[in-house]
């Protein structure tokens, strides 16, 4: 069971004041939350790296959280930023098994749906979403993705480039 927004916000305020015990609990909860948040949107063997990168960013940017505002939308913005950054790195995945979805098993489904990564994808044109999905998430090569979705290789590259640019612009909006 992952802590709710109010509990995490309270832990964060204590962490900003320097309370290490609260911070340790907060990071453990964030770690669990992030693993679920990224599930299905990153190949499993990259999940640990991405979660660690995000925790490191959270640590560096502790001051950017305003105690007067909800915690999870802040954490989601940090997580989305790191995720888009991660997608920019080219890699070839050798396993494509995804865990359960984030929104499907969340104690606050309304908030979960609002801040999920899937919501960002919904705003992308289908061709761009598909190209990113196949190459950047499932780890297919550009050639394999071109065959799989019937686009030329250059179009796949253009769609990835444009899609990532749009995702960057939508980190806080969508």
């Amino acid at each position, binding site marked *: 069971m992952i802590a709710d927004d109010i509990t995490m916000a309270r832990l964060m305020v204590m962490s900003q004041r320097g309370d290490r015990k609260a911070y340790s609990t907060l990071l453990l909860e964030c770690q669990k939350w992030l693993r679920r948040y990224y599930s299905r949107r990153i190949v499993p063997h990259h999940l640990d790296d991405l979660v660690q990168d995000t925790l490191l960013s959270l640590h560096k940017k502790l001051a950017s959280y305003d105690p007067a505002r909800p915690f999870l939308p802040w954490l989601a913005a940090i997580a989305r930023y790191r995720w888009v950054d991660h997608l920019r790195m080219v890699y070839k995945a050798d396993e494509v098994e995804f865990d359960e979805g984030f929104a499907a098993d969340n104690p606050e489904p309304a908030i979960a749906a609002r801040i999920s990564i899937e919501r960002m994808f919904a705003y992308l044109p289908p061709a761009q979403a598909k190209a990113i999905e196949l190459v950047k998430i499932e780890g297919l090569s550009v050639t394999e993705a071109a065959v799989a979705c019937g686009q030329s290789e250059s179009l796949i590259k253009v769609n990835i480039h444009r899609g990532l640019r749009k995702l960057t612009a939508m980190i*806080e909006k969508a």
Partner: protein
Amino acid sequence: MSKPTEFLIAELVDDLQPVGALKMSRGLLVSAGAAVLTMLVVALLFGIRPDIIAGNLHPVFLLATGLFAMLGIAASVTVIVMSRPQVGNDHGGWVWAAAMAGLLPFTALIMGLVKGPVALEQSSISHGLDCLVVGAGLGLIVGTALTLWLRRGAPTSAANAGLLTGIAAGSFGIFAFSFHCQYNDIYHIGLWHSLVVIIAATVGRLIVPSLIRW
């Protein structure tokens, strides 16, 4: 949880130091303080127009400085909002202020097309260049303050944050210098004063992102 993540969390907890949250009110104070400092620099280095001191304010001066001030405020507020990321934030409010300030060069262009070369002669080029250089230079005060603020924050769109920092810097720079510049004609303000904002925005867009990326 994997061992490396466990170690990382232990290290981060060890490294924890108390931090002051980036509050909206504090960001506004920083921005307003930088704008006031810019005004002080103009008053001390260049002097304030005699007609303003005498209380004889020209309508074009009031309109133009008002529009630049509004643009500077709108851009600064957006920059401060961007420093504190949150899914659901809206960063688009400044566009309306920019559209309103855009009426200045637009009016100058229309009047220039109607009047022809006479319009350009009315606008002294050498003084226009003074406004351009000094206005942009003055913008460095607000630009630096906002860039330092953004470095503490976590802007998720470095490019937009850079652009808006430049717009805020240029707007406040030329707003402050307008209190020295004695020109009230729309050609001078629409061309040279607007150019300060455009150049500062371009410089901000090109330089600031590399300073605030995280």
